[in-house]
């Protein structure tokens, strides 16, 4: 996983498929995953997903990192179901969890964030009539991506300032100055945007 995102660069057909098509396929597959009747069909679907990971040439290490958290949860849930509802049900519930999360993870691994941003912007076009402006949505998303490291740096600043003054106060003593700095940054950003004619 890179610092920029979960995307795994590659050149497989899955990587090259258009993002919108992948999202559509994912939605249909997720709906289908819920309808799988028994442990055998869930197992077969899991094998297909594993095959797709191999087809996209996702290294085992990356695939493992992607699925490990849900595997842990699935184990817990499966163990819990085993007592209440029997082995078959436990396998289906746990398997469906792993199936749907790993399938969604595969789309994320093989699709650039920028391409998904484009899908969001295009998806907003039909919403024009209720006052949603796709260009402004894209602008806000870009600004938000930029704001993450900025606000992270502000948290660092506040921590250091507190350490320098010997303040060891709780969460409130940390969060108030952080919020004040964050709002100031937002205000400057807003003025800069207005100055560039965003409101015109």
């Amino acid at each position, binding site marked *: *996983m890179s610092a*920029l*995102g*979960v995307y795994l660069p590659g050149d497989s057909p899955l990587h090259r498929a258009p993002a919108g098509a992948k999202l559509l396929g*994912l939605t249909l597959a*997720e709906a289908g995953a819920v309808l799988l009747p028994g442990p055998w069909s869930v197992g077969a679907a899991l094998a297909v997903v594993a095959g797709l990971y191999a087809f996209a040439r996702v290294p085992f290490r990356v695939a493992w990192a*992607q699925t490990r*958290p*849900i595997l842990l*949860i699935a184990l817990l*849930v499966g163990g*819990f*179901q085993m007592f*209440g*509802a029997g082995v078959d*049900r436990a396998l289906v519930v746990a398997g469906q*969890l792993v199936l*749907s*999360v*790993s399938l*969604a*993870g595969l789309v*994320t691994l093989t*699709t650039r*964030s920028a391409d*998904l*941003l484009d899908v*969001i912007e295009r998806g907003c076009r039909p919403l024009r009539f209720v*006052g949603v402006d796709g260009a*402004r949505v894209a602008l*806000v*998303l870009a*600004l*938000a*991506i*930029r*704001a*993450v490291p*900025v*606000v*992270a740096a502000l*948290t660092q600043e506040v921590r250091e300032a507190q350490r320098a003054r010997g303040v060891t106060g709780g*969460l*409130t003593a940390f*969060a*108030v100055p*952080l*919020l*004040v700095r*964050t*709002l100031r940054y*937002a*205000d400057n*950003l*807003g*003025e800069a*945007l*207005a100055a560039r004619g*965003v*409101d015109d």
Partner: protein
Amino acid sequence: MRPDQSDNHADSPQTPSGRRLPARDLALIAVFAGLIAALGLAPPVYLFGGSVPITLQTLGVMLAGSVLGARRGFLACLVFLALVAIGLPLLSGGRGGLGVFAGPSAGYLVGWPLGAFVTGWIVERSRRYSIPVGLLANVVGGVLVVYALGIPVQSWRISTSTFVGTLIAAAVYLPGDLTKAVVSTLVTRGVRRALPTPAGPGRTGSDRT
């Protein structure tokens, strides 16, 4: 919504009608989405001598509603979720991507924008921000509304009864979330005192020229 008071930020007479958001609101929404993300990057805070780890991400959700108000708080959370959905690892613990929306806690995530909206809505109803109002807003919006979406989805995904799901939520999340509701209230009050004019949104006469 009362258009005269509910969205009384500086330069936007047209906003409450649902038309275009002015630049300042776009900035506030984007920066608060960044704040929610940054709070997730911070290592967890430990309460009660390290026995209860608290990630600050949902504090960011409550603050978005409390500080920005219903509409902008809702949108800030939505923008944050969009960043997660396009694959940025911004959820606490470095999770991200579409997988989290297919997992058992998806309902909680979807509940965030609505929770922030309700929090902001309650805050906007009251003339001044007092501790009881803040607590009510944060607990109803930031906890009850989020759980109302989170618990059914979780129960469905792990195939338990809603009752068992509620017990899980109450045991695992509730102590931390109630603590965050208190912190959010105190922080919001502190921010409103510290910033009487410039960026204190949701205040009457927060005009900045």
